[in-house]
């Protein structure tokens, strides 16, 4: 048991970009200390952030085709769910998810070490 301050999880949000910087049904890559993060925007302007690594063979998810709330990995076409980063069955595996907050059309990410 440490002190209260040590046990407090510091929630830090960092500004990534504006929503309009991401193409609709597309993604941008954000370089971070945790590695590349793919930030997606779907047709309804929802924004999602996942590690830019397919759970299959590490393909860059940011380069895939976005549809509904999914992205198809460009290497072997695994479909990954944007909300939780997990592969659509029967494939198994998850890409790390990063919390996203959108305020006044600006995208903030919460990037803490895994």
């Amino acid at each position, binding site marked *: 048991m440490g002190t209260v301050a040590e046990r407090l999880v510091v929630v830090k949000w*960092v*500004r*990534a*970009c504006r929503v309009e*910087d991401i*193409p*609709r*049904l*597309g993604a*941008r*890559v*954000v*370089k*971070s200390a945790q590695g590349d993060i793919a*930030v997606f925007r*779907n*047709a309804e302007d929802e924004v999602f952030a996942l590690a830019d690594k397919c759970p299959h*063979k*590490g*393909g*860059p998810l940011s*380069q*895939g*085709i*976005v*549809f*509904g709330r*999914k992205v*198809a990995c*460009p*290497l*072997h*076409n695994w*479909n990954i769910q944007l909300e939780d980063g997990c592969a659509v069955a*029967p494939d198994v595996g998850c890409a790390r998810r990063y919390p996203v907050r959108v305020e006044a059309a600006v995208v903030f*990410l919460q*990037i803490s070490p895994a």
Partner: protein
Amino acid sequence: MKLVMVGNGMAGVRTLEELLKLAPDLYDITVFGAEPHANYNRILLSPVLAGEMTLEDIMLNDVGWYRDNGIRLHLGKKVVKIDRIARKVIASDGTEAEYDRVLLATGSNPFILPIPGADLEGVLTYRDIADTNAMIEAAAKYKHAVVIGGGLLGLEAANGLKARGMNVTVVHLPDWLMERQLDRTAADMLQKSLEAKGLQFLLKTETSEILGGADGRVKAVRFKDGSELVADLVVMAVGIRPNTELAESAGLYCKGGIVVSDTMQTYDPKIYAVGECAAHRGVAYGLVAPLFEMGKVCANHLAHLGIGRYEGSILSTKLKVTGIDLFSAGDFIGNGETEDIVLHDAVGGVYKKLVIRDDRIVGGIMVGDTADGSWYLQLLRDRQDIHDIRDHLMFGQGHLGNSGHQGRSNAAAMSDAMEVCGCNGVCKGAIVRAIKEKGLFSLDDVRKHTKASSSCGSCTGLVEQILASTVGGAYQPAESKTKPVCGCTDHSHEDVRRMIREHKLLSIPEVIKFMEWRTPNGCASCRPALNYYLLSTWPREAADDPQSRYINERAHANIQKDGSYSVVPRMWGGSTSAAELRRIADVVDKYKIPTVKLTGGQRVDLLGVKKQDLPAVWRDLGMPSGHAYAKALRTVKTCVGSEWCRFGVQDSTNMGIALEKDLWRMCAPHKVKLAVSGCPRNCAEATIKDVGVIGVDSGWEIYVAGNGGIKAEVAQFLCKVKTEAEVLEYAGAFLQLYREEGRYLDRTVHYVARAGLDYIKQRVVDDGENRKALYARLQYALSGEKDPWQERAAGVARHEFELLEV
């Protein structure tokens, strides 16, 4: 709304599965099943009997599935009454369920011969798990089995009992076995191979009585001629009758089954019927495949999507007896208006017969070698004109040119450990296991679960064979002419193209809305296809959607396994210069590009370029895009030709350059490769290209629809022309026809196989006006296309290449 399903077999549950996909929340569902088991794969009872699988292996939906989908399940309860006034069904134990809709899936009952002794102990039918278990028990205790009926089911039962050590005799009334699926020649071959496995047969033999012993158990079978055969187990497999008892008692019209319309509704539109209990257009089907098609249509209608109609099925059969290859489909006997093509090698054990009417396959039988069964069935269902391929039709689709699976074209001859899919490393055993354990029925299912044939697709034929031999006749290849674009819609590629043209649709959202896609913005399969159809139908008008393009076409470079890209600049006709090579060398140094390689298309490939460097690399190269990443014209490969070569009779290099300058920037359903050779020695290998041009002394020969990749295919001769200008016009017109009519992801070889070379010649060679019009449309489309590299080097689509940082 309340939906009550009566009968808990494959047809009904499949309908529910389809319904839950379309409208998961529309109905409150109750299911009654007379058997104590949840839904199992009835067609795999034979392998269970033969000891190759267990009952657990063949469960399709366990009780948990019903619970997870909120379905009320009454097992072991037989429905005895439908009260159509009060709208409720009543089971034998008094359980009642109210309904708004009823789905009858009561299946069929085995036919029992009306002969003395049919009710003795030890006389069984072969229909469900209980029958199968009874046979397995009997086989453990007794020695002599008689199977009455030499049809599909009877033979599978006989084989299973033999495998369990019984001495088995099959008694059959007609002149030969499986007379409803086979002609005499095929049946004789089948009988020989079953005899070799130790089965015995009595044909043209009518059973008159089954004799019992003092213990009340069967002891012998007596025939009409008075002779007798010892038996302590008798299995009757003489046919099935649709189970219409409940429907008839409810006053529903039945004639050879519960009569249904094309939407699977009975005479009471609130009541549907699917599966073996239903009679559609006078036919009650006893095989699994049609049940799936019915289920789909029925679910569509139940979900209030009244777009599907069931129009009957063409039946095909495969016998599931290990080691015996047998296939039969359609009208396999023929009549005065049909022709037969027959190949018969009695010693080698191969017999193939195709029945043809008006240049179309209407039926066929294969024994010993069923490798091409799926292909023939596809041709049959598509009503494909086989005139052009008639001379080699009998030799099958010819997987000879395929690579990646050791040249194998016959799955039956492969061991479980052999690799089927060389792309994804999937062996035969893994595919068989997935099909059995996961209850897969379609090629798509197998691709999803095993990845086999999901990459390059060259092993598709093998995977289909494995599927067909594992699930038997339940596997039906999709009718390719009306194959939906993807799971987002039921419309075919052709429907989509027509609507885009007739209604002048100009964007993907318009198509998706107009054609009522099930998904809000399509998927990774249909969006690239739609984008291509829009751009090729309405060039310079339709809006290109970069987000609907595969990454290579969006980034204008080829993505590599590590996420870097490769860059292939265009070198006209494979010609380059010191200045270009010097610039390439400088770019390699400046951007630290790790690998430089020559491609098969006479160009230079720069591999390992970082995405953010691409626009600068293109700017520094100062060369046009090679489109090596696109479904578009790639290269025009050339030999040296008459300028230098001592054999050359035509200037192939300059012909190639002219073609490439004429056609570059041309998008297409798939990649397009050309080659020009300056003499018939054909050093440019023009005969395996989409368009191959070969110089001869008196002009140029044009070949089309060749292929050198997944499936090696020699190009076919289109025509001979005299001048360079004619080469441009004919080649351009052919490619425009392909652009307008080919399906997205079809190479020219696939397109021409479907359209027929005669048709292509008629449109491109014989009809001069049409050729000119095609060529003019191509020129119009190309005139709107710019070099994507120079645009991006100048700042277009900058967001695609720039990284964000936090």
